[in-house]
Every structure is written in C-alpha cells, then in structure tokens.
C-alpha cells in the first residue's frame, strides 16, 4: 500500500488464486527434473571441481602457488572475499529493509535473494580461511580457552571480520530458514513421494499454520528483519575497516564504511538481476517477478551506484585537499600508474555504463539491463582490485615497489567459487521453493479480510 502507484505494472500477474500460486511455485520443486537444469547443474559442477583441484594443490603446496608476495600481500583472495560478501548483501537487505517498510514487491524475490546471500557468504568465507596458509587451524581465529593461554586481539578489524561474517552467515541462515518453514509445510503436504514427505516433514518441524503460531512467527520474523538491517550495514562496514583502519594511502579513508556498504548493495542487486533474468524466463515466473520488480531493482542499483561514484570523487578531492603527498601520489598512481587501464575500466563499467539506468527505456529493456548488470559485476570486482592491489604495489619506500598478477591458481579458485555458488544455487532451485509461497498468497486479492467488524 505504500509503494507509489505510478504505472509500473502490477507486482503479481492477473488471474492468480491461492491454488495457482501454490501449485505453480511448488511445481518447480515437485515436478520431474528438467534437461536445462541438468545442463546448468552439470556445468556448475565442473566448475566446482576446478575449485576442489585448486584447493587440493593449495593444501599440499601452500599459498606460494598464488600471485601474492611482498609488497602485494593481499591479492585475489581478499578481492574475491570482498566481491562475494558484497554480492551477499542484497538478499538480506531486500528481505529486511523492504519488509520493515512494507514494500510488498519484495515478496517475489526475497527468498531467492536470501539464498543467494547465503551461498555468496559461503564462497566469501572460504577465502580468508584458504589464505591462512594452514587452513585446518582456522579455529585459532575464535576466542576459546586454548592451550596457548592467549586470546585474539579484539582491536583488530580481522577479528571483527570473524565475528561479523559468522554472525551474518548465522542470522541470514536463520532468517532464510524461518521464512522457509511454512513453505516446507506446503511441500510436505504437496509432495507425492514418501521420502519427500518425510524429509520436508522433518524440516517443517510440524508447522501446521496455527493462528497462535503465526502470531509469534510474525513477531519473530519482523524482529529478525529489524536485526538484519543494521547487521547488513555492519558487515560490509567491518570489511571496509579491514582496509580503512590501516594507514595505507588508498585504504585509510573515513568514507570507506558507507561507501563499501553502498557498493555491496550495488553489486548484490546486479547479481540478483543477473540471476533472476534468465531464471524467470526459464521457469516462466514472469507473473511473479514482473517488470515492476526489475524496474525497482534497476533504480536501487542506480542510487547505490551514485553513492559509489560519490565515494570515488571524495577520495580524489580529499587526496588533493589534504595536501598529504602520499595521498596525492596514490591518486596520481591510480590515474596514471601501471594499472591505469584497470582504473579506466573500473570507471567505465562501474560509473559510466550504469548511468544508462537513468532512462526508463533501459530499465525496462531486459537484454540491455542484463548487460548493465554484468558490467556492474565486473566493475565491482575491478573496484576491489584497484583498492587492494594498486594501493599495495607502491609502498612508502620506492625500494619496496612491486607488481602483482594472479596465477592460474588464483583464477582457478575464483572460477571455482563461482562454480560452488552456482552448484548450491541449482540445488536450491531444485529442492526448495525459490519464491516465498505463503507471502505470495498474502498479496492476492482474496487474502484481504473484509473491513466490516461486528
């Protein structure tokens, strides 16, 4: 009711009832496996095996197989970590903030976006662990009474990262699962196979739609949304602290937290669009994920993209305004140094091309929008490359200058995590309803209770 009714089309196609909504969404899970799905899953799985091979070599030979060295001690590992975790921001954001502000258009995309969040966070979380050198000792990061008599340094942003990312993963999973419970009950009741009924039955935990249960459920769900909103902001802020708290020129900027958060939402929405555009077509879900959704997502991208551009601009202005020679050199090096092509590509893909989104005609043109989203996916990756590599490769002392390039294992791991992400996503689409069925029911006209009260 609070979305502006400005001729953007409906948020659910006409002619749907409780039955059709339920059956159509549940059918994606309960029907036979389709060939296209098999193909997609197969390709993803092949990519996943690349990841496994790269990790196997890493375990045997150590992180020397990567391109990192002094002075660029952080490379693809942290670039991809930030890239993935940024992508993982749209899901919870869509779910939480839009729920709090009663933006009903979220309903069609939130489940899918939340799943995307979880898988992206899983991919992100792998990188710092792999970078540990001895990944099997990852539990040393946690505060537990160990035989070394030591505790982690809680003043370190890397420690904040551990807490932020693990809290984020946990809360996102809870949020996602709580949203799934009523739909799992639907699948339990709709499934025709005994195994399916038992498995969905266990997962649904005996949900029966009791009014008393719904009452507490709604409270808990809203509270989770309320908690997730600042959490999302905190997570990418903490990621930005990984850089900003240090004193490397190009990292140490107070604008980093909000600018990273905006970048994360930007990247996240781009990825949601990248994935929904083909999916809605393949599964014929155009009635549920309408042009209005796509349009809204494009607008959010435009807004957050402008914030990111603002961040770039402030960095350059303040580098000059500060009068600090290291800051000025950092900007000069970005613009004219050995990585200037990357910086130019970043500005092109992340700032210039997305300006197309100002036009309604672009926002409603699916192929063009898809292209813009892809451009942003690339652009946000380049942004992290520029921030990390270009800031590190010129140390304070010219004697410690160096260059960086990823090795085949860097690229393999990156492609491999894309495989992991897609594999999980394909499994999710096949096994769980990708649109929240019970919330879609509430959008139907027949769900409205008549105003008359006795």
């Amino acid at each position, binding site marked *: 009711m609070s979305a502006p009714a400005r001729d953007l089309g409906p948020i659910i196609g006409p002619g749907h*009832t*409780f*039955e059709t909504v*339920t*059956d159509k969404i549940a059918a994606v899970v309960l029907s036979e496996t389709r060939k296209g799905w098999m193909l997609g899953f197969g390709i993803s799985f092949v990519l996943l095996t690349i990841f496994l091979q790269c990790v196997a070599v890493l375990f045997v030979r150590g992180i020397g197989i990567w391109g990192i060295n002094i002075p660029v001690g952080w490379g693809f590992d942290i670039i991809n970590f930030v890239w993935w975790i940024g992508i993982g921001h749209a899901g919870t954001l869509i779910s939480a903030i839009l729920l709090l502000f009663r933006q009903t258009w979220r309903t069609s995309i939130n489940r899918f976006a939340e799943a995307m969040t979880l898988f992206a966070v899983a991919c992100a979380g792998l990188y710092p662990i792999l970078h540990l050198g001895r990944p099997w000792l990852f539990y040393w990061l946690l*505060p537990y009474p160990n035989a070394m008599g030591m*505790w982690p*340094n*809680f*003043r370190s*942003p890397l*420690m*904040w990262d551990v*807490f*932020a990312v693990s*809290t984020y993963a*946990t*809360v996102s999973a*809870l*949020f996602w*699962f*709580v949203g799934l419970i*009523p739909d799992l*009950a*639907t699948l*339990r*009741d*709709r499934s025709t196979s005994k195994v399916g009924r038992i498995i969905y*039955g*266990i997962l649904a*935990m*005996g*949900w*029966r*739609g*009791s*009014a*008393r*249960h*719904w*009452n*507490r*459920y*709604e*409270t*808990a769900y809203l*509270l*989770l949304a309320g*908690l997730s909103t*600042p*959490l999302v902001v*905190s997570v990418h802020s903490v990621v930005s*602290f990984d850089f900003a708290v240090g004193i490397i020129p190009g990292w140490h900027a107070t604008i980093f937290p909000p600018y990273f958060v905006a970048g994360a939402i930007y990247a996240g929405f781009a990825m949601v669009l990248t994935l929904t555009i083909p999916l809605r077509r393949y599964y014929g879900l155009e009635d549920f994920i309408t042009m209005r959704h796509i349009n809204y997502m494009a607008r959010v991208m435009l807004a957050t993209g402008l914030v990111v551009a603002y961040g770039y601009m402030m960095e350059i202005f303040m580098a000059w305004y500060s009068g600090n020679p290291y800051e000025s050199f950092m900007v000069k090096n970005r613009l004219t140094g050995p990585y200037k092509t990357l910086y130019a590509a970043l500005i092109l893909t992340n700032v210039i091309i997305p300006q197309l989104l100002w036009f309604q005609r672009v926002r409603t043109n699916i192929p063009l929008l898809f292209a813009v989203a892809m451009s942003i996916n690339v652009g946000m990756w380049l942004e992290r490359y520029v921030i990390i590599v270009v800031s590190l490769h010129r140390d304070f002392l010219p004697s410690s200058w160096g260059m960086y390039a990823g090795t085949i294992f860097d690229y393999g791991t990156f492609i491999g995590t894309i495989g992991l992400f897609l594999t999980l996503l394909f499994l999710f689409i096949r096994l769980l309803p990708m649109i929240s069925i*019970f919330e879609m*029911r*509430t959008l139907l006209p*027949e*769900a409205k*209770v008549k105003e008359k009260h*006795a």
Partner: protein
Amino acid sequence: MTARVPVYGLMAEFADVNHLIEAIRKLRQMGYRRMDAFTPFPVEEVWEELGVHRNMVSFLVFCGGLAGCLFGIGLQYWTSVIDYPINVGGRPLFSVPAFVPITFECTVLFAALTAVLGMLALNGLPAPYHPVFNVPRFALASRDRFFLCVESTDPLFDREGTRRVLESLSPVSVAEVPD
C-alpha cells in the same frame, strides 16, 4: 460415529478467510474458548478474533540482545584487560571504540538466535506429530483452505452439538479429529 474413540476436537474447513473469521466470532460469542484456527498465511484478524494479541517473543529478544551485548563487552573486557593484558600499538587495554563492532555483532547474534529459538519453543515446535494432521483434508491448510478446530477440552464441547454449530457456519466440510 459408533465407536467412541477419544477425539481431539472437531475440525471445520472453510474456503474463504471471511467465513473463518465469522465462525470464530460466532463461537466466541457462544462461549467457546479452546479452539485454534489454521491458515495458509498469517492473518492478523484471525488471531485477534481468537483473542491472541501480544506475545513474549519481543521481550525475549530484548533480553537476548541485552545478554549478547553484555557477553560481547564481558568477553572483550575479561580477555583483554584481565586474562591477557598486552600492549597493542599503545592502545589502552580497554579500547572502547575498537570493541564496539564485536559488541554489536554479539548483540545481534544473541537476539536473532533468541528470536528463532524462542519462537519455536513458545510454539512447541518441532512437533512433527499433531492430532490435526489426522484429518486427511488438513493437507490443504498449507495451500488454500482455512481450518478451525474446536478442541474437546472446551467445557462447552459436545460431539453432536458442536458439530451442528459448525455445520451451520457454512463450512466446506466438518470432520472429527481423532486423538
């Protein structure tokens, strides 16, 4: 209905949420109290008719958040000041600004866990078995139908009488729920 097996209650099925609300209102007027409605999506009006308004979840979550906040501060204070005091870059042992992020994360984590676990516990879940599932048509409660169950523990409950009342409320069907 010859064999007198114990019953959990009587279950009426409605095709429309307004009929359900109407039925609850009538039964409440007649004095029935022990009943529960089952809907395929949350309907605020239904639980209001049933007399369910507030719940404990918010309060629990507040307590959980507070506990998480204290845990976060306590953990960092105890480890950094008492158990393992060490000079890190000249910062004070109790570095207040630096301890904010983890305190915040702990607050959110505890509050979220309380929200989910508290909601499930108060709802008595997981409970894979429940008598209402004995009604075959109850599978539609997760699709498009609205159910109302009058429990046999209600003082006014009477197998035949209550059944007649329910049948007068334009349900799709009325069924006994075996216990």
